[in-house]
């Protein structure tokens, strides 16, 4: 087999893995959009915030230490303990639930019945707020996140492919792990929304707010729950991305990566987020591999958007989105 084809296959596989990570972020968007019609730009920052909180908890950092030191002239930074990863994750989850409750209580309760663009702007405001708040709380420097996920080249795949093609594929263990976690997460979410009472209530709210309200579903509770779920998805995405590239500001920019995924898959569809993520992941890696060198490289910044844009011209609601019906 010619070398280029084998390289291409490797790029393809890596694209699939990257796509899974995009899909993870996109999933959080879809959950909130379906249930409350809010296009949550803050999803990426939620991932960053959760990852920061996790690192901070595990290292026993004192929250707001920089601020306290600046105001009172003290010099504190660490409690001096180290938490195991599992307890850290549970505590972070609790904080994300609290955050969901606060967001609902303080912001979106007052914005019911506003236009979607206003809600969207509010989430951008929330994104800015949380970005600054997270930095204030835990400090702005790049942090290393290690919760015990295997990393580095997968030797088994390397060996197996070497025996077949005479060329070992480089696949990161972390990516494989992320794929498995994402699959479990999606299955769990589907099971939750199909088989539990709360899940059914959530689908009812997504279908029709007023009808759900009239049969006694508490909108407030569902919205808090959905934001918590989105917080949970953000935490998973934050752990994966944080382990991959360190917990830093650029983590919040994965929201921008997830947007074309959403457009491609449709804002309202969970399978759409997965398939869209895979298409974008493979598409941008293959494009960079095949066409990138010809036109100067770094095409990954925009390829996903242009692909989604061209796609939307032919199918304005995305792959799996609900058909947009306009009534006068």
């Amino acid at each position: 087999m010619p070398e280029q084809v084998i390289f291409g296959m490797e790029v393809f596989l890596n694209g699939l893995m990257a796509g899974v990570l995009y899909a993870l972020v996109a999933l959080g968007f879809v959950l909130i959009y379906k249930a409350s019609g809010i296009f949550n730009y803050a999803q990426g920052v939620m991932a960053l915030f959760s990852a920061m909180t996790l690192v901070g908890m595990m290292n026993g950092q004192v929250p707001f230490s920089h601020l306290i030191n600046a105001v009172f002239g003290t010099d504190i930074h660490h409690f001096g303990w180290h938490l195991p990863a599992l307890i850290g994750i549970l505590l972070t989850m609790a904080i994300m639930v609290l955050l969901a409750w606060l967001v609902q209580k303080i912001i979106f309760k007052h914005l019911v019945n506003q236009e979607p663009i206003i809600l969207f702007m509010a989430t951008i405001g929330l994104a800015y707020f949380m970005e600054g708040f997270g930095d204030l709380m835990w400090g702005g420097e790049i942090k290393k996140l290690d919760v015990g996920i295997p990393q580095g080249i997968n030797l088994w795949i390397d060996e197996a492919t070497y025996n077949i093609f005479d060329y070992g594929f480089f696949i990161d263990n972390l990516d494989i792990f992320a794929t498995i976690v994402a699959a479990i997460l999606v299955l769990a979410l589907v099971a939750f929304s199909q088989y539990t009472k709360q899940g059914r209530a959530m689908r009812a709210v997504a279908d029709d707010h007023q009808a759900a309200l009239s049969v006694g579903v508490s909108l407030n509770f569902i919205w808090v729950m959905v934001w918590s779920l989105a917080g949970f998805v953000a935490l998973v995405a934050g752990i994966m991305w944080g382990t991959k590239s360190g917990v830093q500001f650029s983590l919040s920019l994965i929201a921008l990566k997830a947007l074309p995924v959403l457009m491609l898959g449709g804002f309202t569809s969970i399978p759409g987020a997965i398939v869209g993520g895979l298409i974008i992941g493979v598409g941008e890696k293959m494009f960079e591999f095949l066409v990138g060198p010809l036109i100067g490289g770094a095409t990954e910044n925009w390829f996903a958007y242009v692909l989604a844009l061209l796609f939307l011209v032919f199918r304005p609601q995305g792959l799996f989105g609900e058909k947009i019906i306009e009534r006068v």
Partner: protein
Amino acid sequence: MLYREAGDFKTTYKEDNQTFPIKFDRYRYYFVLIVAFLIIPFWINDYWVNAIFLPFLIYSIAAIGLNILVGYCGQVSLGTGGFMAVGAYAVYKLMTAFPDVSIMIHVVLAGAITACVGVLFGLPSLRIKGFYLAVATLAAQFFLVWIFNRVPWFYNYSASGQINAPERTFFGVPVTGANADSWATYLFCLIILTVCGIVARNLTRGSIGRKWMAIRDMDIAAEIIGVNPLKTKLTAFAISSFYVGVAGALLFTVYLGSVEVGEAFGVGKSFLILFMIIIGGLGSIFGSFAGAAFMVLMPVLLKNVMVGQLGWATDLAAHFEFVIVGGLIIVFLILEPHGIAQLWRITKEKLRLWPFPH
């Protein structure tokens, strides 16, 4: 007392249709113009111009442009930064290719070029609506920034990849480059802003503005009563991009002087301009000014208080700024979703009745 329609009789159609039908408004408008043109240029210094006035004037132009598209025509755009970059690079290419032509002509031409690019990226708006369109305009943002980074022709093959504004004069007075006086740059931007503001105000009052608003309120209904959606949406994109392009050109030539495209025209700039029109008020020219003033003044104020008065580290202050900007946006949206312009409208209603509200 001061603010009354009563007793102010209009005897011609022209008077009846003027921009500021109330006498007090009209005098206030003249007063602002006189202060801006005849008083401020005599006492401003470099600090005031660079920290407050130039950003305010330039972002006002961009905010008016984006407000035409988002506030009047209802097409949400997140590609403002990209279009500003088009304006900046267009004016750079024109300035270096035709050094003898007046900078004013270059700025206008740069706006025109941006308008063409805007129309190109506006084409999908006929098929794509709402949030899908907002995200689609991000394609313009990332693609344009990438192209200006990667194609050396745009930055004249300079080694650093930056573009630097050469010195150019307007009626013999340098307005770009290191030798430009602060009052000259201020007046140059002010003239452009004034013209832009008057044109925008009258466009939005006229038939084209009403077509935009019809499309915004309900595009299908507008189509049925005879508004051509293709023409209307594309004119909104063209005129909005023209304004944004002019703002980008001024930002680069007059204000920054040298520009690295990803830094100056990144997606953050798109959001900044969007914040301005949301806080100022969608669908209001006055709101564009108010929002620009707010977003320019607030960081300066915060920085002065936190770094200057309290003596905090700058990175801490920067984090705080994020918190406060985000928090203020949320507070504004909750308390007054229609922005500062709505507050002004309410004030005017109250003024009409004052001091006898019953």
